[in-house]
């Protein structure tokens, strides 16, 4: 119904506050340029795409998250168990993951809170920040079920204090590479990262190794009015940007919050990463086969500068506008799904690494040091040749007395300048940079070949001994990209041009008599009638087959080339059907292999561009291969399912048995197991893992109970849902409903006007005196009320 309904009008209470998705608030300017609604109208809402949030946990029973919650995309690394529920504490510090999750996939039209960008996606959480965060914890978190989870969204990183230079450890780097290589069954996991909130500390996200990784999609923020948010830090690795909360009087971003609530306090680049994770989920629904690089190409091609204000917008040599603050601009969900739906995977990634340069040059205070190298784009090595650039990485080894005084730029052969590092006032470290990798996306689409110049400026900010010099010991350049134009296929597809059937040769005609008689040897393919020259074109008849057009070059061949078959009787090469690459005859059913882009259909022995249901097109074998037994439809691999047979349902790209009511799917055993008797549906065997309750039970948190426990009250039944036990207000042991409806308080608290107040804050001066005050109706006086709080305010 989403596709048909031109006006979205969800019943979610905060839907009207979601200014960054739709504009129904006439009094404020419209800012729906991220075109999320446009993507929904095309029918993309994230179905069957799996997203997980790496953070401090996810409140999986939040009414706005529960419908889309996916326990298979969740884990608790801190607690080493399967439940990612945050740790509740009085400081309420574990709110972050739940807030991010809501932005991605809060359920729509469920009368709760908001609507997620991909409100039909599967959402999970990996609880990994609420404890000792180590290299191992991060690596473990980034490698949870890589074949099931499509997108990992992270809104955290090293300190944004303007002096920390830190990034992923060895294990985490391996986990990122593994995810890229093997995740999503070889398509590559998608890692989305918040670029950083160190703007006020003059931080620079090139000092954050997660943002600077080529494997992560680094996302920044802009304010409602397209200004730079106070917290935003620049860098050359930022790929794109989304709206977030910025200036004081800006409209806020509403999302789900801990304790089953909503909040409008979520801000920073933590808002932006989940929004892009949601938009990528929409794109994946439009095209499940997108690789991790396809996604980055799509973001580069569809993001737009619009009204985003920055003084460093530039157009690179490939005609792409880019900024250190916003990358290629504001994301555009509609364009993403539009492009994704017809996207042809970009050519394989090529990596062209250059030998390190060792200039060993001093860096003088107040001066600029340049070091250049000429790159051929590895044109001499076929499998490493880079002609069209994607990411460029510069690894730098330098010493310097005050690292914050350095400004580093890279200039490409096309003259594009990308600032790899800006001055940072607060970084007084004398550690220099030790093979630190700076990454830039600003050269995307440019040519690789030519002279690259690294420029290092030393701008002393504070008094420092300028006698002590910095030294650029070593630097190396690594170019990532493709050897062919990645968008070549995006023009009308150029089929392999194979000459048409009219090229078939008639009976060999007698050649005009040559002026001069040729008496030399004939070509080995000539027949018994001899030849009038040494080549195969000079034969008077052929020993095996003839090939070519009647009145142009005709040649004798020993066997027929691709696209032809040999007609032995006629001794001619005849053209195959246009769909065949090789064949045994001219009809379509005589193909023995198919032209590129087509697949052999085993059911009809013909070459087709779309395989029949229950098959997928195997590129390497160029034939339709049967999906595995549970799949009704699959893509690119027999177990990468897009639809399931009767009795199975899709979870990610896997068909899992549809468990009947009262059972749940146990992933490890790959079977349906019984729920607890109180659960009608559940995520596990325990009584605390119910999703819906058996008739006659009430839902309390994640359990089903016959009667609400102390501290809860039973809510009104609503159509199609279990009756809920809602929590009474704090410190209340029993109540008749929400808000101030308490009937009995906890020890140490008194019931005052149906609410519980701590005893120390409300008591009486003197009982008898206060009884008098009350009987003389003096309680209206504030002074008396203060002396006789209990008597005056007590019920009755």
């Amino acid at each position, binding site marked *: 119904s989403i596709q048909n309904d031109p006006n979205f009008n969800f019943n979610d209470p905060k839907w009207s506050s979601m200014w960054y998705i739709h504009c129904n608030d006439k009094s404020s300017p419209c800012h729906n340029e991220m075109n999320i609604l446009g993507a929904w109208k095309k029918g993309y809402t994230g179905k069957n795409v799996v997203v997980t949030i790496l*953070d*401090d946990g996810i409140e999986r029973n939040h009414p706005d998250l529960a419908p889309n919650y996916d326990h298979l995309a969740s884990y608790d690394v801190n607690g*080493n168990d399967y439940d990612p529920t945050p740790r509740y504490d009085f400081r309420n510090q574990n709110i*972050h993951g739940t807030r991010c999750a809501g932005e991605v996939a809060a359920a729509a039209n469920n009368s709760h809170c908001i609507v997620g960008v991909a409100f039909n996606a599967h959402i999970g959480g990996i609880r990994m*920040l609420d404890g*000792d*965060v*180590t*290299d*191992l*914890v*991060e*690596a*473990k*978190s*980034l*490698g*949870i079920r*890589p074949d099931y989870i499509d997108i990992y969204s992270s*809104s*955290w*990183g*090293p*300190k*944004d204090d303007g002096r*920390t230079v*830190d990034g992923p*450890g*060895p*294990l985490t780097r*391996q*986990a990122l590479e*593994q*995810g890229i290589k*093997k*995740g999503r069954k070889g398509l590559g996991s998608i890692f989305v990262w*918040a670029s*950083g*909130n160190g703007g006020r500390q003059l931080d620079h996200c090139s000092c954050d190794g997660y943002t600077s990784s080529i494997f992560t999609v680094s996302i920044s923020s802009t304010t409602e009015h397209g200004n730079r948010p106070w917290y935003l830090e620049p860098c050359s690795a930022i790929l794109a940007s989304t709206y977030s909360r910025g200036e004081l009087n800006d409209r806020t971003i509403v999302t789900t919050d801990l304790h089953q609530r909503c909040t409008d306090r979520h801000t*920073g*680049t*933590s808002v932006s*990463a989940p929004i892009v994770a949601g938009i990528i989920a929409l794109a994946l629904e439009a095209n499940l086969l997108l690789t991790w690089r396809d996604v980055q190409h799509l973001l580069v091609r569809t993001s737009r500068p619009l009204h985003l204000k920055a003084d460093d917008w530039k157009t690179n040599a490939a005609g792409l506008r880019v900024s250190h603050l916003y990358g290629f601009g504001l994301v555009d969900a509609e364009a993403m799904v539009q492009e994704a739906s017809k996207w042809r995977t970009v050519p394989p990634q090529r990596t062209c690494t250059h030998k390190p340069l060792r200039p060993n040059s001093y860096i003088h205070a107040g001066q600029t040091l340049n070091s250049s190298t000429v790159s051929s784009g590895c044109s001499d090595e076929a499998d490493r040749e880079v002609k069209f650039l994607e990411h460029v990485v510069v690894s730098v080894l330098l010493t310097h007395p005050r690292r914050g005084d350095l400004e580093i730029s890279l200039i490409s052969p096309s003259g594009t300048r990308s600032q790899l590092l800006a001055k940072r006032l607060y970084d007084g470290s004398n550690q220099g940079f030790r093979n630190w990798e700076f990454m830039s996306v600003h050269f995307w689409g440019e040519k690789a070949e030519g002279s690259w110049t690294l420029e290092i400026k030393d701008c002393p900010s504070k008094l420092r001994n300028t006698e002590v010099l910095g030294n650029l010991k070593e630097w190396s350049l690594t170019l990532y990209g493709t050897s062919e134009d990645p968008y070549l296929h995006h023009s009308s597809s150029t089929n392999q041009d194979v000459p048409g059937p009219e090229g078939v040769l008639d009976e060999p005609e007698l050649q005009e008599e040559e002026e001069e008689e040729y008496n030399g040897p004939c070509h080995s393919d000539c027949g018994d009638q001899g030849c009038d020259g040494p080549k195969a074109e000079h034969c008077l008849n052929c020993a095996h087959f003839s090939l070519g057009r009647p009145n142009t070059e005709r040649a004798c061949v020993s066997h027929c080339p691709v696209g032809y078959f040999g007609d032995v009787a006629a001794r001619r090469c005849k053209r195959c059907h246009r769909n065949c690459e090789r064949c045994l005859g001219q009809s379509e059913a005589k193909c023995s292999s198919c032209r590129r882009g087509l697949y052999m259909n085993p059911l009809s022995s013909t070459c087709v561009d779309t395989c029949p249901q229950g098959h997928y097109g195997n590129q390497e074998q160029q034939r339709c291969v049967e999906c595995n037994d549970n799949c009704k439809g699959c893509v690119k691999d027999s177990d990468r399912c897009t639809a399931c047979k009767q009795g199975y349902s899709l979870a990610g790209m896997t068909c899992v048995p549809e468990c009947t009511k009262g059972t749940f799917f146990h992933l490890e055993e790959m079977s349906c197991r019984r729920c607890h008797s109180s659960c009608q549906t559940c995520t596990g065997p325990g009584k605390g893992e119910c999703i819906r309750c058996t008739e006659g039970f009430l839902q309390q948190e994640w359990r089903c109970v016959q009667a609400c426990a102390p501290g809860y009250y039973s809510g009104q039944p609503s159509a199609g849902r279990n009756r809920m036990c809602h929590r009474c207000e704090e410190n209340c042991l029993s109540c008749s409903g929400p808000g101030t409806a308490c009937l009995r308080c906890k020890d140490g608290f008194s019931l005052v006007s149906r609410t519980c107040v701590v005893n120390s804050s409300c008591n009486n001066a003197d009982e008898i005196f206060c009884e008098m005050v009350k009987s003389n109706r003096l309680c209206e006086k504030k002074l008396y009320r203060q002396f006789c709080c209990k008597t005056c305010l007590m019920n009755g």
Partner: protein
Amino acid sequence: VHGRDVFTNHWAVRVTGGHLEADRVAAKYGYRNLGQIGSLEDHYHFHHSRVVRRAAFPFRGTHSFIHMDPQVQWVQQQKVKTREKR
């Protein structure tokens, strides 16, 4: 302590030969094998309950001999990283 390393009682260990081999190596030096580290093959998460949970220096003891075990390619005692939510 800002800027100082904080060592935990968790290790990342690279052991070939499968998880049974990893279990054997772990038991041999008093560790508990908490399983493979995500999708990193041959990389296991070891925990040593008798090593202090947080220390400013790597703790030496019989468990350190794991470095010499021929089955063990690589060992990394885990340090706490300061990570901020954005």
